[in-house]
């Protein structure tokens, strides 16, 4: 569905994209995860034909993406990072303006408008000026503006920036439903929770380079430790610290130990050892590793640095 082949882009001396190659299949919910300035928005700008790549090729649904080419644009819907709406106009007026650019017949446009306004809970306030909307409402309107022409690919550039958790969840639910209905979605974010929740596959990008590309589970397996085990300090656990050490590295964090299991150690075997040592399992908390850790592990820096 989408192909990027050896794409390079520089802004004066800064290399924004460095030999980026990606292949995104139809129906995928594809995540592009990286910190600010990693090259996510540049990738999006090139995908929509707003910016021209210095070199490389981009194809969407078989059509080559170029800044002066219009055909492929009918196949894509783009949700910009900023709320790209006319504040002084109503939701309905905004939708009509942007929808009309795709040459939709009036009845079709009206139907799509009403359907999407209903879907995101804005139908009753469709005649209100956007300036009176909350941040979450604006974000929802920003999203459905890209859907009126029923695109095959939805490109979302950090579409939930500055949104409260409730609205964010509503947007996620809506996007998941769209994806379930067959829409291919490319989603850039620097929130690993978003990528983990939404995406079938994730590409991690840093300094213009794709440094990892797989499903979230596959990516997590790239970490040296599979799980984090936290053990509360008390008489029973302190006296058995040497038992824990045989399963991996122990880090003393004042009120608790953190056990980083060796690759060869199994969680079941560790719990067996706890039982033998009469240590209550309630003293033990297990946390799954995150993509945040993977990013830290791969680049030595945090996603939101």
């Amino acid at each position, binding site marked *: 569905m989408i192909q990027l082949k050896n794409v390079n882009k520089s802004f004066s001396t800064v290399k924004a994209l460095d030999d980026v190659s990606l292949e995104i299949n139809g129906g995928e919910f594809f995540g592009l995860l990286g910190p600010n300035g990693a090259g996510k928005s*540049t990738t999006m*700008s090139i995908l*929509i034909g707003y910016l021209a790549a210095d070199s490389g090729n981009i194809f969407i649904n078989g059509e080559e993406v170029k800044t002066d080419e219009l*055909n492929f644009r009918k196949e894509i819907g*783009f949700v*910009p990072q900023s*709320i790209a709406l006319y504040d002084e106009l109503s939701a309905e007026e905004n939708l009509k303006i942007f929808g009309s*650019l795709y*040459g939709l017949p009036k009845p079709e446009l009206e139907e799509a408008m009403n359907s999407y306004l209903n879907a995101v809970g804005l139908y009753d306030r469709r005649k209100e000026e956007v300036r009176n909307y909350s941040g979450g409402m604006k974000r929802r309107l920003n999203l459905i503006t890209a859907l009126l022409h029923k695109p095959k690919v939805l490109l979302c550039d950090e579409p939930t920036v500055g949104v409260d958790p409730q609205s964010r969840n509503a947007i996620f639910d809506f996007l998941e439903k769209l994806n379930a209905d067959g829409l291919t979605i490319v989603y850039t974010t620097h929130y690993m929770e978003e990528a983990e929740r939404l995406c079938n596959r994730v590409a991690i990008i840093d300094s213009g380079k794709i440094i990892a590309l797989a499903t979230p589970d596959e990516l997590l397996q790239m970490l040296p430790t599979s799980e984090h085990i936290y053990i509360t300090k008390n008489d029973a656990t302190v006296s058995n610290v040497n038992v824990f050490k045989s399963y991996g590295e122990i880090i003393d964090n004042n009120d608790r130990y953190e056990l980083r299991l060796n690759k060869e150690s199994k969680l079941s075997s560790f719990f067996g050892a706890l039982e033998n040592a009469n240590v209550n399992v309630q003293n033990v908390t297990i946390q799954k590793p995150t993509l945040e850790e993977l990013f830290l592990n791969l680049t030595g820096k945090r996603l939101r640095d």
Partner: protein
Amino acid sequence: MKTILQLVKKDYKLFLKDKVALSLTFIIPMVLIALFGAVFGGAGDFEKLSLGFVNQSSSKVAKTIETTLDTTKTFRLIKSYKNEKGETVLYDSNTIKTAVMSGKFSAAIVLPEDAFTDTSSSLKMKFYYDPKNDMESQVIQGVLQQTIMQSIPEVFTQSMQKKSESFLGKDTGKMFNSEMNKTISKYFKVDTSEIYGNMNKGTTKKSTDTTKSKKGGFNMFDNMLNLEKYQLVGKQVTNPMATRSVGGWAMMFLLFSLAGASRSLFEEKQSGVMIRLLSSPVTRTQILWSKYIYNMTVGIIQLVVLFLGGMFLFKIDIFSNFLNLMLLITASSIACTAFGMFLASFTKTSAQANGLGTLLILTMSAVGGSWFPVSMMPETIQFFSKFTITYWSIEGFLAVLWRGSGFMEILPFLGILLGIGIVVNIVSYFNFKRGNIFRN
């Protein structure tokens, strides 16, 4: 085209929603035009005013007047023109009238063959003028009258002396002159020896203080000048001052409006709308054309509204030559919109466009004649004024509203304004390609 119209429609919708922009475009200029149109009237310093001149008289008096006007610091006498073959031809009483009517200069003096003869008791002179602006017209008439009045006494005293001597004989004539001097001295409080000395020299010391001369009683010379005034142009115009002011101020506000409207490109870029537009099946060129058409039509509407305001406020007749006025309004709007687009293409931010725009607009308005008639400005400024949109628009409006010029006569104005529009647009287009409006 459908896409462009959709984009134009979108811009109109936004414009109509923006109350501040609406009031800035129509109401504030209208209020200021009303205000300035009512109070405008003072003249600043000026350099030589062009004055057409034809001397058909062979009298010495006429020659003296010509020499005086030639040497004055106020006027630059224009006595000849180049014909189609490039030959220099002296104006005559007909061609000088045509020159005034066509706006080559605002006024002309014709000294006819019988300007002053042996039997004349006054100097006959014809004054043709085009009061396309009251300020200039009054200055020309005032200075002209003052200059001629200062020259008349010397030529008349000389003439009177010769007449008395030929009529009475030399000795009796001298006695008569002496008695005349005493009488003049007594009643007009002027030194006898000075009058007598000047009579003998054939000159009279010129007064540099016209106020004193008038108070001292020299108004008797008024009868010596028979000045026939002919207003050649604009007799039917009800409010000449406002006719000029409305055109001038309307142009300035048009430039401000269109420079402001072009900033919407920056605003759309900043808000992310530009990238959304470009992610849809819309080209950069279509966006630029939509902006251009929108701004140009707003400019036309603004000028029409302002001229209608001028009609209601100052009784300016805009309908007797409406079609030509509309052509000029359209050409002016095309040129001004190109200027606005140029600003947006040349600058990098909205603030830059604002600052540079204000500077250029105020300069163009001042130099181009929005505030003062260009003819009253120094020659260097007059030269530069021809490089402004304002100048060509205002002169075009004057031609249409003042002289009632037809299509062929306003064609040069239309051509220049459209030429400016086309050239500036081409430059802007290439600037946009290199600029950052369409880039990250």
